[in-house]
């Protein structure tokens, strides 16, 4: 039987046309095409047709972070070596039902054993993984998922559509309590999930959405066997390259290579190359010393100080990647003085973005505009970076103070958590805002103390994580629900009718170019009267000892270890 030729989505041809005319970059095209179901190979081919010239500006992706995860391995097979242990420092929390996971750390252990239907690479392109491919209907409301054949779980059972349907059932079961439940509410429940045959599943979405493949790589979304009973530590069954040998919360996790994994390495043998992975739960400061002495090989989510300590150490490699992770300086617009846009604008003007980036992150990031859309997002609309303007800010504040009959400086309290870069940003901002007439008192607490009240403080710095699409975070934090109440994560209470309208439009717009047009307006509104300041988008590092090859930095710090090998 020959394989049916995959159908190519009409929008892909449109995108190809845009690429040909130079309206989108190759990177954007790849992303878009793969989103709509073209395999990476097909997309590359289409891109190649469209692009006789050399690739256009590829963004700031460093060499190590770029396409290294693409399946097309070009390394000479002879150079790959097998065996060895990777030891990584990472906090180890409780794991029970993978669908219930709420920490990336837990997911990093689980993802070595169990796998996802799709995979969003470090380049923000989502590819089929356990899926062979997917197809979206023209209205993007019906999605057909084609499973790869011949994949077995580590208990010998074959992966079929039944396992996938079982797993989706777990996500949608309120008794399980998965965060997938809210994320894929637009699927409209189990009755819209159809088993076509043993290897094909069709989703009939309640409302169209282009982010289905992205959502299938949300970290709780590992595919479980249909026999799964609810505790992954007791029943660590998955299709992954490793098996779980030991798990002790707060201590360590030991994973061993599985001999019959479905993917093969460049030497023709099944992956993985490594024999063993050990995660140890140790303090980060201790980990920085340990990696230098070779007691461990890698550190989960290094902090800026760790980056600085390790970047020039011989024998240690630093891989970095730009992300949509950021520290949001946000105000409560329902409280004085932040209800006045002049005060908000004054505070935004106090951001010396380059200096804040340098002081708190050693320049390792991309300076931002005061809108929650990152330059790494495909629909980002480029805007000039606002300059540090204490005089302008002071003028605004004086106007405000005169109107209110108060004296400058304006006393405010800035709350944040004592974590990777927040205290440094807060201290830098305090100094930068002083000439403008702000007197900022710092209220820096332990992370859990801040998370207890992050939506309640009137002025604060909140860390927001990476999402691959620009339209994914805005509806979480800057709109109101049907009753007009700010959504639960709307920490600023800022609700703007024009903004909401534009955002809804953007969410419906499949055409990338058109979506970016709308995004320009959205960004302008947020900059003009929005509740947040974003000084920069941080880089994420993967710091690993140099004998390990094929290491990449992933924007969400996901560990993809099955293709890593160790030079003896």
């Amino acid at each position: 039987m020959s394989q049916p030729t995959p159908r190519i989505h009409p929008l892909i041809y449109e995108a190809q046309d845009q690429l040909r005319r130079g309206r989108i970059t190759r990177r954007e095209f790849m992303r878009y095409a793969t989103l709509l179901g073209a395999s990476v190979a097909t997309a590359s081919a289409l891109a190649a047709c469209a692009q006789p010239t050399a690739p256009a500006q590829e963004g700031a992706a460093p060499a190590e972070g770029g396409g290294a995860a693409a399946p097309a391995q070009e390394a000479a097979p002879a150079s790959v070596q097998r065996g060895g242990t990777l030891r990584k420092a990472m906090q180890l929390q409780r794991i029970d039902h993978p669908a219930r996971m709420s920490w990336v750390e837990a997911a990093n252990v689980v993802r070595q054993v169990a796998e996802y239907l799709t995979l969003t690479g470090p380049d923000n392109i989502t590819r089929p993984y356990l899926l062979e491919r997917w197809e979206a209907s023209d209205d993007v409301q019906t999605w057909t998922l084609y499973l790869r054949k011949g994949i077995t779980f580590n208990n010998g059972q074959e992966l079929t559509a039944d396992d996938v349907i079982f797993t989706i059932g777990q996500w949608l079961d309120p008794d399980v309590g998965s965060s997938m439940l809210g994320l894929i509410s637009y699927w409209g429940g189990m009755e819209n999930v159809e088993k076509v045959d043993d290897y094909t599943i069709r989703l009939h979405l309640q409302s169209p959405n282009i982010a289905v493949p992205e959502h299938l790589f949300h970290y709780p979304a590992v595919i479980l066997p249909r026999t799964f009973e609810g505790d992954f530590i007791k029943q660590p069954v998955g299709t992954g390259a490793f098996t779980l040998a030991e798990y002790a919360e707060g201590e360590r996790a030991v994973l061993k290579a599985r001999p019959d994994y479905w993917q093969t390495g460049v030497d023709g043998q099944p992956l993985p190359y490594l024999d063993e992975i050990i995660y140890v739960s140790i303090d980060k400061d201790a980990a920085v010393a340990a990696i230098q002495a070779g007691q461990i090989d890698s550190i989960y989510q290094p902090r800026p100080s760790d980056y600085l300590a390790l970047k020039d150490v011989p024998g240690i490699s630093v891989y970095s990647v730009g992300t949509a992770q950021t520290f949001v300086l946000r105000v409560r617009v329902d409280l004085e003085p932040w209800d006045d846009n002049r005060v908000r604008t004054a505070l935004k003007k106090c951001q010396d973005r380059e200096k804040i980036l340098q002081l708190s992150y050693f320049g390792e990031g991309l300076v931002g505009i005061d809108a929650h859309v990152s330059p790494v997002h495909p629909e980002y609309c480029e805007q000039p970076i606002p300059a540090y303007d204490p005089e302008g800010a002071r003028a605004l504040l004086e106007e405000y103070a005169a109107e209110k009959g108060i004296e400058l400086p304006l006393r405010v309290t800035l709350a944040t958590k004592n974590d990777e870069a927040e205290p440094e940003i807060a201290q830098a901002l305090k100094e930068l805002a002083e000439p403008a007439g702000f007197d900022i008192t710092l209220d820096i607490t332990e992370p859990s103390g801040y998370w207890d009240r992050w939506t309640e403080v009137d002025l604060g710095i909140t860390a927001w994580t990476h999402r691959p699409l620009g339209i994914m975070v805005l509806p979480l934090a800057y709109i109101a629900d049907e009753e007009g109440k700010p959504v639960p994560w709307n920490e600023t209470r800022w609700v703007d009718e024009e903004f909401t309208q534009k955002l809804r439009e953007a969410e419906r717009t499949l055409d990338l170019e058109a979506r970016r047009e709308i995004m320009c307006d959205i960004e302008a509104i947020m900059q003009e009267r929005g509740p947040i300041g974003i000084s920069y988008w941080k880089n994420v590092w993967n710091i690993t000892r140099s004998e390990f090859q094929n290491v990449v930095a992933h924007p969400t710090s996901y560990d993809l270890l099955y293709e890593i090998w160790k030079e003896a």
Partner: protein
Amino acid sequence: MAVAQPTVDPARRRPSRLQRLWAGLALVFQSRVGTIGLAMVLFWVVVALISLVWTPYPPNASLFEQNLPPNGTNWLGTDHLGRDLLSRLMTGTQVILLKTRLPNGLVLPIGVAIWGVLGSLVLGTVLGLNAGYRGGWWDQTIMQVLDALIAFPRIVLYLVVIAALGQGDWVVILAITVTGAPGVARLVRSLALDIKTRDFIRAAETRGESPWYIMFVEILPNARGPLIVDAMLRVGYAIFAIGTLGFLGIGLPPPDPDWGSMVNDARRFIYANPLAVVWPSLAIASLVVGLNLFADGLREETTRYQK
């Protein structure tokens, strides 16, 4: 028999306060160790006072490159935010010795370490005097409670108190007070047990003085020598404790520098700038050594004097 003898009441016939202070200091100067100790302590007091009016640069301003080694401009180098370390080290003395920041923006004179020790002195003295002088049921109860307090390893108590009440100058003072009071109380109790057998106490009792009067007017002044020595050592412990808390990241809140959190900040950047850890560490160690030597000298001389 029971007629009160006209005993010499030492509280009455004393030279003036200043003279007494001078006499005390003269005592210290007789001991070389004590003199060195006093000099080290005074050095930091002077530094703290100077820092109130002058530091080379504003201590919280990021004016320079980050993590610089010592150089002509920044004598001790700069920290990870490009702030002058000498200015921060000088200002860091204030929180320990000269000022305490209260939650509503008020500032009290006298530093956190000293308030903490004063707190434990007051609490410990009240408990110790009552236990020692009244004895019996009072003694049993108070000592039992103190035993329970002493049983807590200090650090555990700090962790629990701070986990419960959050960060802040007054929480640190409270923690120092609670951990210090049992030690003071034990000392005061043993002194009171000794002093209460003296004749002038019996005289006061016969005069019909109230127990509180006897405890605070008759007994306490006679116990002050060892108490002062003990307090000196306690200020040392308190500075140590503030340092440890700062190091664990649960001490005094930023941005104003204190030595413990300076060590904590600098430790994360130790590979880029190891000396930044050295300065605050040296400051803590030298002040603690100074206080110890001063206390040693004081003790040596007072005991010799008594013999």
